[in-house]
């Protein structure tokens, strides 16, 4: 639902020449869109963007010298208003979310008709910071329902409880009838799983993740 009256200027990035040609024809047919540049690599793309300052960048994900997701991140950092459409042969939710996180405006699979790419480009020009993708809702739902967070083993949970209580390693070892080096290893594993560097961070992380169990007082 674009309200653009002036010509939209588009740069196409894909290492496959026939794909670029097909898309260029689709954009030409649209009438009010002009493909001002093409590139077959990340380096060429950055050059072309610098020179041409288009309204919309349409980029493939897999490129010979890098990938379109990284390119998107780079471009988005300096061009908050540029529309960016990520076009890919890759399927899967993580691709969609990678494009979303990189700051793309749209995500289109290469199986979709060329008109869909054109429509995504129009949308991107009008709302560069709003993301569209087919089956976005499904992907979101799958992401929400995925189990997350680190899993601690039963023994690690016990050690964590004692850590939270402020016990020293030696006390923890005595309390659980294990050697001090074993207790140390458990603590190191807990830190690693929680991404903590010390006791305070581990306790913070445990509280944040709801791993600390007040009912479990033995």
């Amino acid at each position, binding site marked *: 639902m674009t309200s653009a009256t002036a010509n939209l200027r588009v740069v196409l990035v894909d290492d496959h020449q026939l794909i670029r040609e097909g898309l260029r024809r689709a954009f030409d047919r649209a009438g009010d869109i002009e493909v001002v540049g093409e590139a077959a690599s990340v380096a060429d793309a950055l050059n072309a963007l610098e020179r041409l300052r288009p309204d919309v960048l349409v980029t493939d994900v897999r490129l010979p010298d890098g990938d379109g997701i990284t390119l998107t991140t780079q471009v988005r950092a300096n061009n908050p208003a540029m529309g960016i459409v990520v076009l890919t042969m890759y399927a*899967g939710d993580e691709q969609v979310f990678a494009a979303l996180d990189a700051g793309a405006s749209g995500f289109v699979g290469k*199986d979709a008709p060329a008109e869909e790419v054109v429509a995504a480009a129009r949308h991107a020009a009008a709302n560069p910071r709003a993301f*569209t993708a*087919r089956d976005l809702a*499904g992907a979101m739902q799958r992401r929400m*329902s995925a189990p*997350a967070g680190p*899993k601690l083993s039963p023994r690690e949970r016990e050690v964590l409880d004692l850590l939270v209580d402020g016990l020293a390693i030696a006390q923890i070892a005595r309390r659980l009838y294990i050697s001090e080096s*074993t207790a140390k*290893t458990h603590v190191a594993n807990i830190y690693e799983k929680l991404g903590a560097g010390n006791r305070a961070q581990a306790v913070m992380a445990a509280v944040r993740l709801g791993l600390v169990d007040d009912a479990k007082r033995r």
Partner: protein
Amino acid sequence: MAVLELRVKSIFLPLVIRAGIILIFASTAVALGIVADGSRGEGQGVSPREAVIPALMLFCVAALASLPLPRAVPPIIPALAETLSASVIIGGMGTSGLLFLPYLTIPLFIAGLSTGLVAGLAAAATATVAFGGTIITSNENRIDELNRNNALLAWVFILVAVPAVGAWIRRLRSDVAPDSEPAYADAHRLLSELHVVARQLSLGLDPRTLATALAEDISAVVPQADAVVLVRSTGGRFVSLSGHEPPEAAELTIEDAWVSAQPVKREASGRSFAAIPVLMGERVVALVLVITATGLDAASLRSCRTVIEQSGPRLASAMLFDDVRRLATTDERMRLAREIHDGIAQDLASVGYALDDIRQNSDPTVAKQVMTVREQLQAMVADLRMSIFDLRHGVNDTVGLGAALSEHAQRIAAQSDLAIHLSMDESPKRLPITVEVELLRIVQEAITNVRRHAQATNLWLTVTVEPPRAHITVIDDGRGLKPGRADSFGIQGMRERARRIGANLHVGPGPEGGTLVEVGLGTETAAFEPRHLARPAVTRVALTDPHGIPTISPVSPHPHNTRRSRTASHVRADQEVTN
């Protein structure tokens, strides 16, 4: 002469030691000689000249002996040569030779240390004979001279004792690792076996078989004990490789043994547990839990450890091989994915865009025909996208079987006209990753078969995972198996995968037409209960959150319509997330 592969060994240290000894003796001899010259007149002691020449000759011998030799030359040969030449030189010196005699201890010690007692004594005998012979031939009177104070006899004794000491040290050193050579031999045998296995591309070294054998060996040694072999799966959970699961009460014992890499014995809930780690170097690769009613005595524990030390390396290698195979397969799948992605998939996509162009520029009747072709092509490219995805993704450390399967099923449902009814009952414990990989591939293949050949409307996927058991059924309401499809390539592949993980596979007609594919791991494939068909299908995905609270999310809002509503999975570009 062939190319000498010189041993990487410093020449300096042996040379410096030898030269030092020679210098000490030579200077001692000279000093004694000077003292003797001053006090007792001639006939006694050594003049500097007399000491320097043999010393120089000994230097030459020492230099030659210190040269590194090719590996193929047995160490006794240079030791014998050095002994012989040094004996002749020292013997030729007569009285002053006594001062240089200690030099002989070097090659003799080396002979004893490198090749053992017999060879060392042979070298000592050689030295004695050569030394004596040289003295006799050079000057007969010297024997008496030398034999004053039984010096010669003492030296003969020393010459015999030195290689004996060397041989004794050699024995001591090899006692430290008496089984190192058998272990190497065993490892080598194992490697050849692996090689054969790898070439046959079947799994002769199956970790599960070996683990079961190990558990049986333990029970044979300690009759009243029950043994379970465990490995740590991804996610830090312990999985039994040998049939049954360990009791809950043993969990902490197992974990402590794993973390400390030491055997741990503990009593819990009326039974006694001993957890013994299977080590590969420093790393714990598996763990044997021995369960007894009364506890293991020291002797039984020792014999258990002996059994584990013998069979452990084999199990560890089998697991390693499994891992290597998995990594190699993953690598190859990635390569295939790249090839399809960069080649045929892009080409087809570009043909699709060309067709879009033709369609736009043609009259309605032609456009309609082109549209049909375009839709077929879109389906083909979507299929390739899916194949690329499946080649690139599988289960890994963070994505388990359930997550991978439900994502796969949901993507298929979103991109095809097949309504997939998923019923998932997955334990938070995970199967070994190699097993998960094969199960995932079997189910993917089954779903692909349905999608391509069955012309089905509905597909029921039922997954139950309760390590070490798993049971999966894939049922469709399509046209059923056609003759000749039962041993088609896809099903053949499924059978091979199932065999590799010791699972049963059953492919046959479904309960109400269509096809049934059933995989059972650790269970007989159970007879299918048609309750999933009788009831309106409700997609239930039991997921476990980090706190262990199972959540159930019903996704099918139309109980009377088995054709799943497409609202959730087919949303066009009219939804937006503002970032």
